[in-house]
């Protein structure tokens, strides 16, 4: 069973039923990147719905078409998403995304890792 994966944009690891995605330093996400990110994520799912913890502290930018893809296609097989953010940049980014792209799965941003895990554990 595959529990770790890395591509040009992020590192993925699966631990105790939670999928951790950590975006790499200074990545700019456009539509092609978003498609790759979602595809690689789904390869770890093995057809199961999972809660996802997404560390976006190092993301540089995500453009509009990528945001739309991540919100709709990107929510496939996701039970809930917790973003790990750091004010102000990534916090703003997540707020903007949640407000305007309206992902259809429960999505919340956290500064504190423990709180994020507690949120995700309620969806396990």
């Amino acid at each position, binding site marked *: 069973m595959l529990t770790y994966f890395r591509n040009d944009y992020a590192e993925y690891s699966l631990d105790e039923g939670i999928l951790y995605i950590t975006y790499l*330093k*200074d990545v*700019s996400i*456009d539509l092609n990147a978003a498609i790759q990110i*979602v*595809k690689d994520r*789904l*390869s770890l*799912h*093995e*057809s199961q719905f999972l809660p996802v913890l997404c560390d976006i*502290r*190092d993301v*540089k*930018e995500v*453009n*509009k078409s990528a*945001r739309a893809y991540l919100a*709709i*296609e990107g929510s*496939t*097989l996701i039970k809930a998403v917790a973003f790990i953010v*750091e*004010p*102000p*940049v*990534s*916090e*703003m*980014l997540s707020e*903007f995304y949640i407000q*305007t792209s*309206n992902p*259809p799965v429960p999505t919340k941003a956290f500064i504190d890792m423990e709180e994020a895990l507690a949120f995700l554990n309620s969806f396990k």
Partner: protein
Amino acid sequence: MRQINQMLLEMASGNFFYRLERSSQNNNVEALIIMLNMLAEEIQEILIHQGYANTNETFSQIVQMTFLLDEHGHVIMTNKEACNILSMLCTDIINKPFETLLIKKSQTKWKQCWESLVLKNLHDTSLELIFKTKSSLIIPKVCHITTCKNKKEEQGQVIVTIIHQSTNQAEIEKKLKNRITKSTRKEPSLETKKNTSKTPKIRLSHDDIRKIRKGHDIIVNNLDKELPSLRDFALQLGTNEFKLKYGFKELYGTTVYRFLLLERLKKSKMMIQYTDLQLKSIAHMVGFKSFPHFSRAFKKHFEYTPSELRKKALNEEI
């Protein structure tokens, strides 16, 4: 700060295609920049979308910038609009290498593209490049690159064209005018039906729009469930069937049922491609009652069947 002001000024004058360059710092200015960039993207989209939803025709596209390059990649000619947008003088652009107009990251991309272009005789391609204006605002654009040959000249020349979907105020006004004239043309049929005098075109209040948006979100969040009848759905949202039908089309450019179908198909496509769940259960998960029905709808939309897609995905051909 000066750049932010510049960007805001451009936005105030209706130019939403400029962006600010991001650094990797984490501070309030950077947060403001990322918000501003995304805001400009959203507004740009809304303006185009409005054009689309109003006229229900393809949106108009205007050529924004054109550059004619010689065989060394130097600019020979350009148009006035390009100078305006980049806020440079024509003489600043002419005879300079094309890459001087781009940000660093795009310069490498351009060079790679150029090398492959030189090898080919006649070639068309497109490439996303990021332009930098004199006031350091950036403009990300997809460029269309064409090589042309002339019988007399041995050396080929290259045309770079940048198309922009109209955000030009005049263009929007024109569309709005079109829309108004169109709707007045439609009115007589409405009147004859209702037999009332001069029913104005239905107006959606902010409240209506909010309700319809909520309807949209409900649909996206409940693809697996059966949608109630439009009448009941409208009641649930606190509006009426007519407003829901009309407003949904106006806001999203499609009917409620068609939108639902497309979203279901989109979701099923992801599941087929990236999971090994049974096709039958995927059909069920996206709200289809029978597999044959799902398969037919899928084929009609994507022009291949769910099983063809699964087969290809398993063989990693896609």
